[in-house]
């Protein structure tokens, strides 16, 4: 596709000159991955032993990649900041993982999963990648079953499925409400098997703080040992980042407290392009905020929307208890507006509608920022036992947090930031714009376009880690010669010094405000102006405010303790410093994209009935931003073309 506009230089960005070749194979899409694999160079088994690969991250993407690379014979070093790789944030995923198995004979196929994902992503993803993801999905389930993942079963012993938002078929596999936990434990166990075999060296409690690029290739990382505080370097022939998403830029999110953007942000500052940073997903079903001390938001799995009905009072300011509001005075607004998908519309649509009814003053709960998710009908229809079996642990969790019993009174939910579609730009081989730097899982931008469908992040992480990267990295290694590299060399020393300098600067500022107080303020800015809906004025305002606050941060932050000890404040301080910079780029990206697509909703660009209005003529591209020193970032475009799924206005009516 030819883009109709050239990039203009503005106050906030300039045109870049990267040529972003995705390098997806030509020809029929069903054959592309086969063809690519056939064309790839292979590393002989004897030579694999000679290569060192660094994998940063031990979530679904990182653990599956590290284990598989080691099985193939590579030497792997794997890093995570938690005390054990098993605690990566993937552990928290609840609802399930998609796969086009069509075990339920309800019309699913690889093509349908591909189609749903491209459409769900509102035509801002790369077709060839998405097709490959759908193809691989079926192997993931097989692999996990063989590892002992206790997926839910039917009485006959076959695998059970449920449906999820954005799809009309049942293709989601699950292990109670703990699917991420079980998938991660499968990958973690495979990883530990390789640790025992001596092929993976695991570095827990170790944080990557910089990427080292030598002669244009990624050759290592700088780390801080979170127990001793030592700053060290590690060298390798290739570096894989599997460091997860950056939703914590908003402070309050469903992500684990430690989730951060530091690894990918440092890589960006070393030259890796950052794609679509403003594509951040708001999840419609989270427990509403209860007070200003709140440290994170808790997700209630979207699978609840299968049986729960969402409603608010028909009339503004109706403060009656939910059970006292008669049927006729309730507005089941999703069922009313989207009769064919009802409560199962995609996340962005569900979230925006919740915001809209709350903005109208019809929200429920103390602060009016909530809607009901009601199981009364489902319990009457199926019996409490069935509901308990399906969602028991979620109901328990809800009750534990709110003190209310959802079997008796409807849950209150509100949208919260949940997932980031944006991330480092990668080509079809999952390599970034820095040769030898691969990015997998939520950390890359690849497959979900402007909006991710439920149960497809786990699928993508495992597809990248088990089945794609282990091939593509071999192709890279086979095509290049690697001189032995010493971490005492100039680039390593310079990067290590820069990290040490930054650390001591944070410690020496000794200002008056805590890291968290800054993070909360930053998060609120980004949520208000670059959250569920955005407009040009707000984004301009936010950029100014973020800059002011960042400046204050480096002047006023107070980080207690020392460098050479366990120092959780220091860890946070470094992460928040990076969030400040990323937040600005997110706002710039959101400002430049003068259209609404998927989760990116620009108020200026909406249909008459308030749905997102894309502008394919101007914006059918991936925006890949390049760091430009202190100057405005450079904008590069990867044009997107759709040969199979024709772009249309998404309709879930």
């Amino acid at each position, binding site marked *: 596709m030819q883009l109709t506009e050239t990039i203009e230089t503005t106050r906030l960005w300039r045109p870049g000159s990267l040529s972003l070749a995705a390098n997806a194979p030509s020809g029929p899409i069903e054959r592309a991955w086969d063809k690519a694999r056939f064309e790839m160079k292979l590393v002989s088994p004897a030579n694999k032993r000679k290569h060192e690969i660094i994998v940063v991250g031990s979530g679904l993407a990182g653990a599956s990649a590290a284990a598989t690379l080691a099985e193939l014979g590579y030497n792997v070093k794997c890093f995570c900041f938690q005390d054990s790789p098993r605690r990566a944030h993937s552990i928290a995923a609840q609802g399930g993982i998609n796969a086009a198995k069509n075990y339920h004979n309800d019309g699913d196929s690889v093509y349908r999963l591909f189609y749903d994902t491209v459409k769900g992503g509102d035509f801002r993803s790369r077709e060839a990648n998405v097709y490959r993801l759908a193809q691989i999905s079926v192997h993931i389930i097989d692999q996990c079953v063989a590892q002992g993942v206790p997926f839910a079963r039917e009485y006959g012993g076959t695998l059970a499925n449920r449906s999820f938002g954005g799809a009309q078929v049942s293709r989601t596999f699950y292990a109670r409400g703990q699917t991420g936990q079980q998938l991660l434990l499968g990958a973690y*166990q495979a990883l530990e098997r390789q640790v025992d075999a001596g092929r993976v060296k695991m570095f827990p409690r170790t944080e990557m703080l910089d990427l080292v690029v030598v002669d244009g290739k990624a050759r290592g990382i700088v780390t801080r040992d979170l127990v001793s505080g030592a700053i060290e370097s590690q060298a390798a022939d290739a570096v894989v980042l599997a460091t997860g998403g950056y939703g914590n830029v908003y402070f309050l999110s469903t992500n684990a407290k430690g989730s951060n953007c530091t690894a990918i942000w440092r890589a960006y500052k070393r030259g890796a392009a950052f794609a679509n940073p403003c594509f951040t997903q708001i999840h419609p079903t989270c427990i509403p905020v209860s007070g200003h001390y709140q440290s994170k938001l808790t997700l209630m799995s979207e699978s609840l929307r299968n049986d729960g009905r969402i409603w608010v009072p028909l009339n503004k300011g109706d403060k009656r208890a939910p059970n006292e509001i008669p049927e006729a005075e309730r507005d089941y607004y999703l069922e009313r507006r989207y009769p064919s998908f009802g409560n199962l519309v995609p996340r962005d649509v569900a979230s925006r509608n919740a915001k809209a009814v709350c903005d109208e003053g019809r929200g429920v709960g103390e602060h009016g920022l909530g809607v009901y998710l009601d199981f009364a009908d489902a319990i009457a229809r199926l019996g409490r036992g069935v509901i308990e079996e399906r969602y028991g642990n979620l109901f328990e969790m809800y009750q534990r947090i709110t003190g209310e019993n959802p079997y008796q009174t409807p849950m209150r939910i509100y949208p919260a930031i949940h997932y980031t579609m944006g991330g480092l730009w990668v080509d079809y081989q999952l390599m970034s714009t820095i040769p030898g730097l691969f990015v997998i899982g939520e950390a890359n931008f690849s497959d979900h376009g402007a909006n991710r469908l439920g149960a497809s992040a786990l699928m993508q992480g495992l597809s990248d880690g088990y089945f794609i990267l282990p091939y593509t990295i071999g192709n890279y290694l086979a095509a290049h010669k690697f001189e032995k590299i010493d971490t005492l060399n100039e680039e390593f020393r310079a990067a290590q010094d820069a990290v040490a300098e930054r650390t001591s600067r944070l410690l020496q500022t000794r200002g008056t405000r805590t890291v968290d107080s800054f993070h909360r303020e930053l998060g609120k800015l980004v949520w208000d102006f670059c959250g569920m809906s955005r407009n040009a004025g707000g984004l301009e305002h936010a950029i100014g405010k973020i800059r002011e606050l960042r400046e204050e941060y480096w002047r006023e932050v107070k980080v207690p303790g020392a460098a050479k000890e366990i120092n959780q404040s220091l860890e946070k301080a470094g992460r928040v410093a990076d969030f400040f910079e990323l937040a600005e780029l997110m706002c710039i990206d959101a400002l430049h994209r003068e259209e609404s697509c998927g989760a990116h909703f620009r108020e200026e660009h909406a249909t008459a009935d308030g749905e997102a209005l894309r502008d394919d003529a101007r914006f059918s591209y991936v925006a890949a931003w390049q760091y430009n020193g202190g100057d405005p970032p450079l904008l590069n475009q990867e044009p997107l073309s759709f040969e199979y799924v024709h772009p249309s206005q998404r309709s879930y009516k």
Partner: protein
Amino acid sequence: MKLIFHIWRQRDRGSPGRMVRYEKDGLNPDMSMLEALDVLNEDLTIKGEDPVVFEHDCREGICGSCGFMINGVAHGPLLKTTVCQLTLRHFENGQELYLEPWRAKAFPILRDLMVDRSAFDRIIASGGYISTPTGSAPDGNVIPISKEAAERAMDAAACIGCGACVAACPNASASLFTGAKISHLGLLPQGQPERASRALRMVARMNEEGFGQCTNIGECEAVCPKGIRLEVISRMNHDFLKASWAARQPATD
């Protein structure tokens, strides 16, 4: 609401530790225990003191990072609840709370309420897996698994590896943890080929790591935030004994 905390403060592995008293007012009953510590830490930071180090990440009761003793009980008074999900509404206004780290030889204290649980990873590495290299799996529906078996395996697989079981056990045994993994994998058809060697290797590693022996006291089950049942220890013992018996060399003379 107000709480009076007595918290174990210890600089590092080598230093001695002691209990320090902190009074905190203005807490909200809807807060979690960790949010209360966040608030306390904000105060300490502003005062120029070192904040209390405690481990946490998901704050949803699933990652297993958090955990400490509250008044002598691992994860505190509420059944099946980690400290990150324990709200203050379960305490009385003005109550005194003693927060201490897990204490076990195999879990050295790193700082304040943070301990080193890497022994758990090494137990898993010794055999807590099914050897299936990527790509070698048959179709997921080839081997049917009864709903009952899948559910029971899931019950055991729900372990979050927090270490409360070890902390609660007077012998500091890791039997509930190890038994949970042996049961999870041993209940599934895929786990059968390595069932015997798994039990032998994991039990041996558990002992080498310095965990104590199980004497059937049951404190572990009582504090487990995921409700793992003592029955997993029986399964472990069964698999271990059977495997030990089978592994014995026949007498030669």
